[in-house]
């Protein structure tokens, strides 16, 4: 074993460090389309103190450190672009505490979405968190780190908006608490009324520290859930439909999808409306409000509610929605990737036209999905293309299509979500120069040796 391997083994135990070819191969890549780059070491720590020691070692030896949750962002954020140590967080997967009345939970930095869902259902059946549609192995910390969204995003904003506190190992190795927990035993606020320092970490993809604990808001879990789908073939009306729906404040979540198959779906925009209630009366009241809000579109024959077959409802109501993952195998090849810029809902029509244009230009299977964020404050529009890993030409066409999406998204006022390194560079180039300099100052001051997930958010 090399000196570094020995040092890492002393920290995490010999069984949880590897520099074997098999781990280096696997951890060099994510399920997306970006080129791999091998780490030098992979470690699977169990405590924040172990991570602290790893980071201090990395600082001494000037070795990069790349934290990894489930690696499902698909945009290469966990690919160790300059080698170094990949820190797989998934062994830190405990729920540390729930404050039922104050509706928040504290979890370790590798806790999966699935584990928290299961834990709450079993122990706190009146509470829930905002579950994304990424697979259940996706971690809470990585999801808030990338400003992920979930089933409660339409009501409460990005999942990162729901953070109530953080524990972070800084690039210098200190274990730092962010929010009310920095001076109180309680994790009720990540900032207010203090300066909100969570912005030094959220959205930085691990370039400013490793999240080892997350406090997260929980919300009432109603006894019943249901879903309706409003369909229109006029993409230009989707923003108005969303405006009316969000005005009701009656929905749990709103997602709009479009896809070419089956054929009866082609050209249509499926506004999927999730509703909850503690009683049938509550649910029916909400449904009536929703239907009334869209009555004008039905009267003008611009849309209508499709009959959702009972057999289809469990698929739609599933959390996380496993059917989303199945999109990866449409081409029998285990792959899909999407670019999901955050932008105004009024951009929906042009996004959907662009998606169809690109799928036609590059001959690709596609799916469009808009997740409404807040009361129509913005949306994530996913330009998603499926591909076959055994077909390099198809993979290349998807890369080209996504590259065009990146340019297009910026042109129409969008901001990249979980940006690839290339997109980060594009964003930094267009960014207000004072903002860019501020980011540079933050990064240089927090991580003077440049060891934390290098390549990401690097201002030249």
């Amino acid at each position, binding site marked *: 074993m090399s000196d570094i391997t020995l040092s890492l083994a002393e920290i995490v135990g010999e*069984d*949880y460090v*590897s520099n*074997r*070819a*098999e*781990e280096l*191969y*696997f*951890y060099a890549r*994510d*399920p997306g389309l970006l080129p791999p780059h091998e780490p030098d070491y*992979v470690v*699977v720590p169990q405590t924040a103190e172990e991570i602290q020691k790893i980071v201090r070692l990395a600082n001494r030896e000037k070795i990069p450190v790349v934290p990894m949750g*489930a*690696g*499902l962002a698909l945009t290469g954020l966990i690919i160790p672009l300059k080698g170094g140590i990949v820190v*797989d967080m*998934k*062994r830190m997967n405990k729920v540390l505490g729930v404050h039922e009345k104050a509706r928040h939970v504290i979890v370790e930095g590798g806790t*999966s*979405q*699935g*584990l928290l*869902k*299961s*834990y709450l*259902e*079993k122990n706190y059946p009146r509470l829930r968190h905002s579950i994304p549609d990424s*697979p*259940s*192995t996706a971690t809470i910390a990585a999801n808030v780190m990338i400003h992920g969204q979930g089933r409660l995003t339409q009501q409460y904003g990005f999942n990162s908006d729901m953070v109530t506190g953080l524990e972070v190992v800084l690039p210098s190795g200190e274990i730092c608490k962010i929010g009310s927990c920095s001076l109180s035993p309680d994790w009720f606020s990540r900032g207010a009324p203090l300066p909100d320092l969570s912005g030094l970490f959220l959205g930085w993809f691990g370039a400013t520290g490793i999240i080892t604990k997350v406090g997260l808001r929980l919300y009432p879990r109603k006894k019943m859930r249901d879903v309706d789908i409003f369909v229109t073939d006029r993409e230009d009306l989707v923003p108005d439909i969303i405006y009316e729906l969000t005005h009701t404040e009656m929905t749990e979540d709103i997602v709009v999808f479009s896809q070419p198959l089956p054929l009866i779906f082609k050209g249509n925009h499926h506004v999927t409306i999730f509703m909850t209630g503690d009683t049938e009366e509550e649910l029916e009241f909400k449904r009536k409000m929703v239907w009334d809000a869209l009555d004008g579109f039905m009267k003008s024959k611009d849309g209508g509610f499709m009959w959702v077959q009972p057999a289809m409802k469990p698929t739609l109501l599933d959390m996380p929605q*496993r059917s989303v*993952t*199945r999109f*990866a*195998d449409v081409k*029998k*090849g*285990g*792959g*899909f990737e999407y670019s999901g810029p955050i932008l105004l809902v009024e951009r929906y029509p042009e996004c959907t036209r662009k998606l169809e244009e690109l799928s036609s230009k590059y001959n690709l299977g596609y799916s469009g999905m808009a997740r409404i964020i807040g009361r129509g404050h913005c949306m994530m529009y996913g330009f998603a293309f499926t591909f*076959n*890993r*055994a077909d390099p030409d198809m993979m290349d066409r998807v890369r080209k299509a996504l590259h065009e999406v990146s340019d297009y998204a910026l042109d129409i006022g969008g901001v990249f979500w979980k940006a690839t390194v290339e997109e980060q560079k594009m964003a930094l180039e267009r960014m207000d120069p004072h903002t860019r300099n501020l980011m540079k100052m933050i990064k240089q001051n927090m991580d003077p040796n440049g060891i934390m997930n290098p390549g990401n958010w690097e201002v030249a």
Partner: protein
Amino acid sequence: MKYEDIVHRCFRCGYCKFTSDYSDFNCPSYRKFFFESYSPGGRMWLIQAWLNDEIKNSERFQEILFSCATCANCVEHCVFTFSDDLVNLFTAAREELVNKGVIPPPVRDYLKNINISGNPYKEPADDREKWAEGTPLETYDGQEHLLYIGCVGSYDERAKKIARAVGNVLIRAGVSLGILGNRETCDGNEVRALGEMGLFRSLAERNIALFKELGVEKIITLDPHAFNAFKQEYPGLGGEFKTYHYTQILAPLIQSNTIPLKEYKATVTYHDPCYLGRHNSEYDSPRKILKSIPGVELIEMDQNRENAFCCGGGGGNFFTDILGGGEESPNRVRVRQALDTGAQIIAVSCPQCANMLDDAGKAEELEEKLEVLDIAEIVTRALP
């Protein structure tokens, strides 16, 4: 390689690692090693890399492939249409390594022992029937059922007790059966799982020929592994027999009071063996027996039935120990799960599981708190 057409189709979504409610990681090798490379998805990506010559056949690669317990949790929980073939794919990759002659020494030794001795313990075939000494069991001679014991039940000291309990209870219930004695040889289930398809075929053909020669139509197995081989694999080789796990025979007999039982007060949790449960969907018969014993209270572990956590002995690991020991070894995790129920007894219906969990109980120093008993042994305690 067989199943090569699906090897590139894994998305690394990770559903394969979980229980259906996501409450815990349920892949024994991932739970033990915690590197993605030891998960079903990791194996798929590495097999593809190996086929593409991006990685070599190393000791680590072999450990990754052969530490799979073939428990089929991934088959149960993978969301893709190729899920049914995941274990088949891993077995096919093992077969490739076997064919190339580059496999872990414990796997090599196991296969050699089976080939030479007809059992993994290098014990003489003439000693095979010794387990039955002192029982009323007779040699098969046209009885309704053949009771097939298998290598573990025939030679392993702990498992021999289970075999005797099963034999005695079935005889007491009036089931017409006979044993092969020294003519019995390995069923080949683990040989197949370890990828030695030639040896498996040879064992299976030999067994099928013998069963046919003796006029066997119905087989009762002690071991779910043998049950799986006879039920799932032998028909493809011309061996069509009505095959039962012994719990499937006992359950109706006990429920109908054909075997009267006295009260036996105990709290019991049941561990589903993978080759009876997930591989063959038999979850109810063992539970019916336990629930029919007066005084027995059955308490389920959180991870039960389709979500049962494997003891780590499947896929040949019972013999090769490639999954290895330690605090996070699957058998120790499983006994801790059993302990959480508050039960006094872990009931099993597989001699391999019994051994794995016995060992784990000792390692966890739980012998005083948690007893590992086969269902037939519990029934024996309740016999008047």
